[in-house]
């Protein structure tokens, strides 16, 4: 699975908030339920704006809901740096 370095505790926060459904959260933050599912499963890193909106729904700060997996993030950054370098040297 293609994942993201951004981790989250969305599911835990939803259950702490009276077992809020994915659809309810999606409606409140202006996203689709599919996007909420993708975020929860770590398949999509939301925009900064969406992350703030999600955190606001739970009444906490962004860092209480979202985290950053250093090792994975560094690997992704290294890969994209290699690709950019390769593109520059070939053009």
């Amino acid at each position, binding site marked *: 699975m293609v*994942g993201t370095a951004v981790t989250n505790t969305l599911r835990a926060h939803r259950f702490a908030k009276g077992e809020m459904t994915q659809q309810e959260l*999606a409606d409140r933050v202006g996203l*689709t*339920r*599919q996007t909420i599912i993708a975020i929860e499963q770590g*398949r999509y890193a*939301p925009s900064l704006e969406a992350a703030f909106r999600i955190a606001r729904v739970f009444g906490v700060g962004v860092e209480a809901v979202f985290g950053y997996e250093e090792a994975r993030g560094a690997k992704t950054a290294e890969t994209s740096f290699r690709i950019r370098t390769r593109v520059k040297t070939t053009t």
Partner: protein
Amino acid sequence: MSFRSRSAAATVVAIAVIFGVYFWWSSAPGRTSGQVLGELILTIIVLTVVITAFEIVVAIVYRRRRGERMADERDALISAKSARNGYFALLAGVWYAPVMALTGAPSLAIANFTLGMIVVAEIVNFGSRVFYDLRGA
């Protein structure tokens, strides 16, 4: 699978099947340009009708089942990435069309080759949408 994914998957299948039939027809020996043009017009009409009908059915079913929003930031990202992939596929193939023209290939072959590249680009575009939706954008 989301509404958009199902719609994209159906489009891939429809394009592959309908244009597959068209290329099979047009590659038969002894075809004139007029016949192939007629088949192409028929193919485009059939494709438009099939895709429109499917989109209507899926949209109605999905709206009834859950009041799903039509698009959000993730859909926009998936759409942009997929269009980029389709563009690369088109670009890679279309460069060959002038080469064919300069080497004296028949105009029908060049036209069909260019059309084939457009079809491949569309399949890459819609196939990418399904891929990114299922595996992550």
